[in-house]
């Protein structure tokens, strides 16, 4: 039962650590990187104090860390690990490798923009770079959701129909270092939802020699294995649904592959992911007060892409604006293109489907920029794949000053 007294003020990092602790994980191979480091520091303290059983070990790099994580899962223990940004892409080879082994584990990514230039602020290019790596991918909006999603992630990963790793993403700074009220479920209640781990697949043991990760020398064989992973991730839609049903029954909170916010009669819909969806909801509330029928769709599950839920939420609307906190140089916003692909065959797809890129590197998306999004959608008659960058005049003035300080004023640049 949910009660207010169970709530503590936790950062997103602390919530993630609690999720791992309640999931009774066995093994944490770790490597520090801002802004996730607090997660592993918290876990290290708990292991040290004997409050968690198993092992915590620091590896030499994120690539090694992910490889150790997958190998330990292949040997039959419940594994948790965390990284961000540079670390996630450093481990990219290992992500593909371990998902191909079809072993369950949870990897938390605390989103941070990618170098170059190097920065600490959040956006979603890091986690989206991993969207083809064969992991289920879930994005959180709040610290509560972080804790809850880590628990659900184990249920999904370990289900035989999936048997694949899960990547749980939440934004650096806006969630990682931000405290919010979080209910920490009772350990026994969690045990009922997520029993102790017992591998349902053959693991490394002397009595049953097993060769894992065999080399494959022809295309048909390779195709078989890769496509089965695709099936497994598609199965995660149904498995997530069942896990969400049970989670709600146990803990009273409901999660779907998408979250709909004030969509009922909306003619205009914003699509967002992550913590800034809260700001999107605030903008929706503002516009609703002005009499506008606007809603927001938060994309929570990125892989598998919940095409049915997206279609159900977006067809029949006049205008949809996807706000991507990521940028694929040369293309534009990544989620926009995925959603456009899902809608392409739909008869009643929105006449106006527009792409906005904002919040890169942790840049704010102000109410003025939200208003600009709505105004653009209002004024548009057709869709467009051209991304509109959300960047204000004040920010541009500031950038010009910085360029000048860096010796790059326009006068200096002209020969």
């Amino acid at each position: 039962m949910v009660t207010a007294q169970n709530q503590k003020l936790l950062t997103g990092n602390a919530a993630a650590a609690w999720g791992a602790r309640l999931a009774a994980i066995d093994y944490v191979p770790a490597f520090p990187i801002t802004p996730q480091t607090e997660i592993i520091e918290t876990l290290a303290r708990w292991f040290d104090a004997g409050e968690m059983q198993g092992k915590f070990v620091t590896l030499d790099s994120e690539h090694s860390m992910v490889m150790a994580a997958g190998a330990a899962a292949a040997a039959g223990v419940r594994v948790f690990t965390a990284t961000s940004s540079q670390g996630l892409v450093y481990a990219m080879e290992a992500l593909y490798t371990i998902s191909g082994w079809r072993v369950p584990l949870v990897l938390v990514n605390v989103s941070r923009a990618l170098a170059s230039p190097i920065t600490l602020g959040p956006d979603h290019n890091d986690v989206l770079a991993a969207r083809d790596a064969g992991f289920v991918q879930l994005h959180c909006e709040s610290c509560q959701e972080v804790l809850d999603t880590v628990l659900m992630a184990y249920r999904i990963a370990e289900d035989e129909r999936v048997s694949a790793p899960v990547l749980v993403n939440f934004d650096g700074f806006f969630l990682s270092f931000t405290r919010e009220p979080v209910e920490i479920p009772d350990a026994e209640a969690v045990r009922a939802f997520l029993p102790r781990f017992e591998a349902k697949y053959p693991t490394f043991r002397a009595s049953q020699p097993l060769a894992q990760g065999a080399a494959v020398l022809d295309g048909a064989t390779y195709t078989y294995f890769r496509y089965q992973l695709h099936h497994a991730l598609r199965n995660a839609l149904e498995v997530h649904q069942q896990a969400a049903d049970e989670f709600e029954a146990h803990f009273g909170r409901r999660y779907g592959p998408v979250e709909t916010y004030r969509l009922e009669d909306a003619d205009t819909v914003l699509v967002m992911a992550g913590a800034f969806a809260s700001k999107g909801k605030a903008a929706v509330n503002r516009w609703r007060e002005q009499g506008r029928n606007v809603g927001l769709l938060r994309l929570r599950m990125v892989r598998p892409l919940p095409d049915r839920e997206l279609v159900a939420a977006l067809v029949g609307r006049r205008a949809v604006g996807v706000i991507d906190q990521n940028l694929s140089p040369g293309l534009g916003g990544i989620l926009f293109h995925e959603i456009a692909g899902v809608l392409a065959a739909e008869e009643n797809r929105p006449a106006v489907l527009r792409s906005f890129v904002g919040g890169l590197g942790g840049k704010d998306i102000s109410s003025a920029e939200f208003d600009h999004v709505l105004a653009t959608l209002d004024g548009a008659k057709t869709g467009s794949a051209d991304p509109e960058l959300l960047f204000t005049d004040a920010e541009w003035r500031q950038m010009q000053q910085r360029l000048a300080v860096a010796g790059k004023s326009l006068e200096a640049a002209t020969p």
Partner: protein
Amino acid sequence: MRAKREFYHSPKDLPAAEFLSPGSTLCAGCGGLATLRLMHKVLGENVVVVDAAGCMTMLTSYPYTVMQSSWLYTSMSGASAGAQGIRDALDILLTQHRLPETDNLKVLVLAGDGSTYDMGLSATSAAICRGLDFWYLCYDNEAYGNTGFQTSAASPLGAQTSTSPGGFAGRKKDIFEIWRAHQPAYLATVSAHEAVDLAEKVRRALPLAGPKLFLGLAVCPTGWGFDPANGFEIAKLAVETGVWPLKEFVHGQLRHTYIPSRFRPVVEYLQPQRRFRHLFEPQRRDDVLEQIQHNVDAYWQRVATEAATT
């Protein structure tokens, strides 16, 4: 000088059991395969081999495996990290009585020189420093063999490879010394033609906890350019000319387990190999040959000096 035998006195004393089946697609006469086979005989059963990308990756190519043991292919650089994960997981399961001791496994990292000397060094260095209880066999054929024999950090001075067509002008990285600086529980060089020496070393390492590292000269008929039948002879020349020292480091002490009473000239080892032919034809490259001989001589002089002062 030959170290006193503790466990085996002749090749016939080696354990008879086989842990690799025939039918691999590795080259006929593969020195690396010969080394792994012998090592595994002494290592015994209940092994999981954690492999890095290299020639040996072909031991398990779907749907066939040569291994009677368990096997995990990781990546080019990640084998020692994979070993960490398996070892930790087994230890957790054993501690918590979720796995019977009879199901425990020895963890053996299997990597070529390509992985060992460069890309895999980070993960291996960290594993050694953490005191990971694991075995490591580097089959050193002195190049990136599986990709067609390109220069690696293990390539010796003068060796011709596909990326050093004029002969490699650098020097072979001393991975033995790098590992030794980590103070592992056990460290040795081996050669498959010296089966008893190899077996003694594995046997000596068996009761030790911690990193047990083996560096094996893996003669490579395909890459080095000689008739596979002569593999053991070439390996023998590597040792008899002093190019490949047979040594071990255990309990903080370094010793050589075999020192030829009289070293044969290095050219006897180089000449039969196509990868060194350019040092003899069309012109004899005395400058390089002398440098190679000098480097070998200098090593053994240092060995003699250190022996004299202890």
